[in-house]
């Protein structure tokens, strides 16, 4: 009979900082446990509110944000705009393939620190000058990570741990500017980097449907939102549609986010605009290009932001500025996953 008991032996090892980056959030799992015990709303009550109230009550200056979706896909645009509109300042940000989401907050000058894997690009569309300038000017303090590292940092928190071991980043400058620690496997001696659990102050996620309690379902890929929802100390859900609790209970295996993780629920149809909402509408590539172009010049950008964010009172008014329902219907037609 084969055993692997030779792996069980006492030994001393050294934990070493692998990089010079900073840790912006407390990875302590015990403190998170106490917070979750005392502050997470285990009341199954109606949590429906407005975008304005959700932001004013749950997002404070200085908070650290985790944003759901994937840059221009299933992003909570309404909340991001409102954060800019309410001129929130000194926010921290988890930047794992953050694209238009980061662009919005950078344009608003809201961010002063960032765990970064990908923030200044918009994938195939080009780069955001505003985001880039914010980073190059040193106005945002950065710690370097990778997409997987940030996903795993959420996962560590979601698992109720203070760290997880990972196998990427090693041997690179990405590691050198991270805040990971070198460690090794207690059994095999395999080298690992430990990444600290990331418990954001506020998580913001846009979903396909949820009930008034916050029980939420997402169609298609979930990116890192399963773990973000569990890691976040406070969680704001925006949803394409509010649905009866009965509908959630009909297919409970689809529930990605149970109500007890959720602090506020807002129904925001077309809430991912100008991003893509799978099965609902495609991204508005024209508007995204307008954003990028507006960034070429500070005055143009000011006017652009005034027109689309500062000068409108809410997300529905923003949708009017881009062509309203007529344009939205076009985007619905462009969506691959809408059967016709």
């Amino acid at each position: 009979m084969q055993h692997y008991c030779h792996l069980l032996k006492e030994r001393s090892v050294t934990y070493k900082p692998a990089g010079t980056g900073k840790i912006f959030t407390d990875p302590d799992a015990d403190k998170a446990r106490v917070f979750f015990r005392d502050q997470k709303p285990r009341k199954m009550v109606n949590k429906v509110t407005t975008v304005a109230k959700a932001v004013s009550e749950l997002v404070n200056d200085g908070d650290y944000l985790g944003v759901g979706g994937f840059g221009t896909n299933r992003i909570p645009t309404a909340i991001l705009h409102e954060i800019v509109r309410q001129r929130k300042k000194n926010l921290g940000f988890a930047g794992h393939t953050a694209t238009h989401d980061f662009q919005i907050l950078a344009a608003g000058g809201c961010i002063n620190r960032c765990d970064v894997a990908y923030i200044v690009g918009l994938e195939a569309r080009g780069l955001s000058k505003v985001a880039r300038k914010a980073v190059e000017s040193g106005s945002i303090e950065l710690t370097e990570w990778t997409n997987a590292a940030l996903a795993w940092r959420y996962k560590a928190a979601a698992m109720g741990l203070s760290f997880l071991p990972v196998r990427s980043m090693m041997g690179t400058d990405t590691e050198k500017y991270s805040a990971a620690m070198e460690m090794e496997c207690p059994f095999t001696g395999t080298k690992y980097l430990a990444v600290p659990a990331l418990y954001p102050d506020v998580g913001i996620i846009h979903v396909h449907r949820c009930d008034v309690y916050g029980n939420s379902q997402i169609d298609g890929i979930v990116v890192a939102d399963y773990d973000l929802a569990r890691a976040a100390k406070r969680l704001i859900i925006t949803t394409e549609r509010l649905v009866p609790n009965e509908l959630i209970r009909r297919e409970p295996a689809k529930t990605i986010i149970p109500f007890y993780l959720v602090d506020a629920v807002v129904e925001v149809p077309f809430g991912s605009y100008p991003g893509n909402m799978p099965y609902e509408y495609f991204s508005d590539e024209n508007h995204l290009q307008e954003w990028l172009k507006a960034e070429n010049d500070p005055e143009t950008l000011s006017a652009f932001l005034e027109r689309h964010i500062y000068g409108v009172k809410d997300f529905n008014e923003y949708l009017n500025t881009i062509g309203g329902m007529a344009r939205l219907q076009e985007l619905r037609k462009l969506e691959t996953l809408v059967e016709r």
Partner: protein
Amino acid sequence: MEYNDMELMICIASRYLEDDSIVMVGTGAPCAAAVLAQKLYSPRLTIMFEAGGIGPLLSSMPISVGDSQSFYRAIAASSMSEVMETCQRGLVDYVFLGGAQIDQYGNINSTMIGGSYQTPKVRFPGSGGANDLGSLCWKTMMITPQDKRRFTEKIDFITTPGYINGPGAREKAGLPPGCGPYKVITNLCVIGFDEQSKRMKVESIHPGRTKEEIIENTGFELLWADDLVISEPPSKDELAVLRNEIDPYRYIIGRQ
């Protein structure tokens, strides 16, 4: 047949993707190469996207690796951690990466150039999942134009590990053994990596290009394969499928 550099690179890249394997791709040229491989050489190639899409039947090219296309009629619509853990578990054969600079060991910079880390002269999009994929997938491939600015002796920032500084360096750093850069497909040639030194070694020169031209466009000393050949140019079939089926609006192949 006439073809441009982008078409050439995509067609050549597509031939390196073995059937019955899994390839992680981004948007643009790599995705086109993978779909071309599926259509002509490797029908059972599984395409994966880092945001969670697995094995989609791509009708057109995604704009984002997390958009609706990335899991259109997929076999699974999963998550970033699921895809990254599939790489970490050793199941993903190929990954295509891009970058602003690459050195002779295949280390890639997609983070920044000049200045300091906190105030760089130029900040690029960054690692995203590149570092993870280059660390965890078995074979890293690159499609890139070749010039001295990109192919440099010393890159400003190692975003994604190649062979770091030579044989055994990846393993010493703690990365999973047995993986690393595989092929760099440029507008001039196909470059592999020397088994002994882990340095770039030119394997085939594209039709009409010369050794001198390659040397001129490279900021470090290249090795040359003993059996150096002329690359097979894009075939009629390859170009037809690429132009008519994969990128009819020339979004990718018109970029040059």
